[in-house]
């Protein structure tokens, strides 16, 4: 699988910032395109869900929740024992790696569609479900680290979290509207790739800013930010294969497992673990894991998905 043209926009933003260009988006523009992408992903997934709804999807959804519970537990001991981070910092970073990156998912979907590869179109349901468990695990890790937040308080925060509201809301709108949602498609479907390209340009600028911040524990964080997606992706690939997904579905499961959140979790972590150093998680997920996944990881994940789908 070749690197998609939209990835070049990420490189443009990244290189522009590194060479000191004054390229920047107007305030709030980046946020607006994030809202657009989350709604578009949710609505398209909702329509697909209404067309394919079955009990097996509900079982898969339950298992995806379990996958989301397992991923932060894999990262936490590495951060604490190898990275030498404090409990609260390890918990905060691990939570990022248990959740998903909407941008990485959007790039993966764009790659599949540009190559005309079929996939389970109701995947946005799993994207939403993978956002939740990491936040609950964060509470558990927060308690371990001396946090005091109650589950009820956390549930409120989860429901109020912007990305959850938009993804879940979009899913519901698509699910309820079904054929009527076709009216929305000129905006949410036809313009998706153009907006995604702008989003990646903005992400390139942000990622370059985060890379510049890498100082303390930088080599470990680079190693962690590149090895963790590979390990999580391996687990996700086997998981997708066992659930009987198509090659496109296995690829998306790998990508979701390999990605790290930089929108929903950082916001939640600031409330859950106010004393933790939040720059570590954000820098690693946005400055290392996101570029690694979209530049070097995707072709490898695709080959792994292809290889897994041939085992039968």
């Amino acid at each position, binding site marked *: 699988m*070749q*690197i998609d043209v939209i990835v070049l926009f990420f490189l443009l933003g990244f290189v522009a910032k590194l060479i000191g260009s004054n390229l920047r988006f107007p305030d709030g523009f980046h946020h607006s395109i994030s809202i657009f992408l989350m709604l578009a992903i949710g609505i398209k997934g909702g329509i697909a869900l209404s067309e394919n709804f079955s009990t097996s999807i509900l079982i898969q959804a339950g298992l995806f929740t379990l996958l989301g519970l397992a991923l932060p537990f894999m990262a936490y001991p*590495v951060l604490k*024992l*190898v*990275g*030498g981070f404090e409990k609260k910092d390890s918990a905060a970073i691990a939570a990022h790696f248990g959740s998903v990156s909407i941008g990485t998912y959007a790039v993966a979907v764009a790659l599949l569609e540009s190559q005309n590869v079929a996939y389970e179109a109701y995947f946005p349901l799993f994207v939403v479900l993978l956002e939740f468990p990491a936040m609950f695990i964060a509470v558990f890790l927060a308690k371990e680290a001396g946090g005091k937040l109650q589950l009820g308080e956390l549930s409120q925060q989860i429901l109020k979290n912007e990305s959850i509201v938009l993804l879940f809301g979009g899913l519901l709108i698509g699910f309820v509207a079904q054929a009527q949602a076709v009216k929305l498609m000129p905006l949410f479907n036809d313009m998706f790739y153009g907006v995604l390209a702008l989003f990646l340009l903005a992400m390139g600028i942000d990622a370059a800013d985060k890379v510049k911040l890498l100082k303390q*524990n*930088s*080599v*470990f964080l*680079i*190693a*962690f930010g*590149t*090895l963790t997606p*590979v390990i999580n992706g391996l687990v996700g690939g086997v998981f997708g294969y066992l659930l009987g997904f198509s090659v496109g579905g296995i690829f998306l499961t790998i990508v979701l497992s390999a990605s790290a959140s930089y929108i929903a979790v950082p916001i939640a972590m600031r409330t859950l673990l106010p004393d933790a150093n939040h720059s570590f998680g954000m820098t690693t997920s946005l400055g290392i894991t996101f570029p*690694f996944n979209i*530049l*070097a990881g995707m*072709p*490898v994940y695709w*080959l792994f998905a292809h290889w897994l789908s041939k085992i039968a």
Partner: protein
Amino acid sequence: MQLICHNSAVTRSYNGANSLKNKIQFIYSQFTALVMVAIGFITAEHNPGSWMLFALGGAISILAFSQIKSRKKSDVMAIKNAKTQASQ
């Protein structure tokens, strides 16, 4: 005398823990570098971007070497400073 003994014990234990942590991080980084290069080799035939994995593996390995070197230097300096302070 007691203070000097205490200072040197603290320095030794600090240095021992730090040195172990540095070694573990170095091994982890080298392992990551090896994994990146291995994935690059395995997928080279079908992956036009495999050179990025080789470059990444190489960069991580070199950075890990330079970091452990600089940390060793700073540890030696810390011990020297502690000894000087203790003798004063």
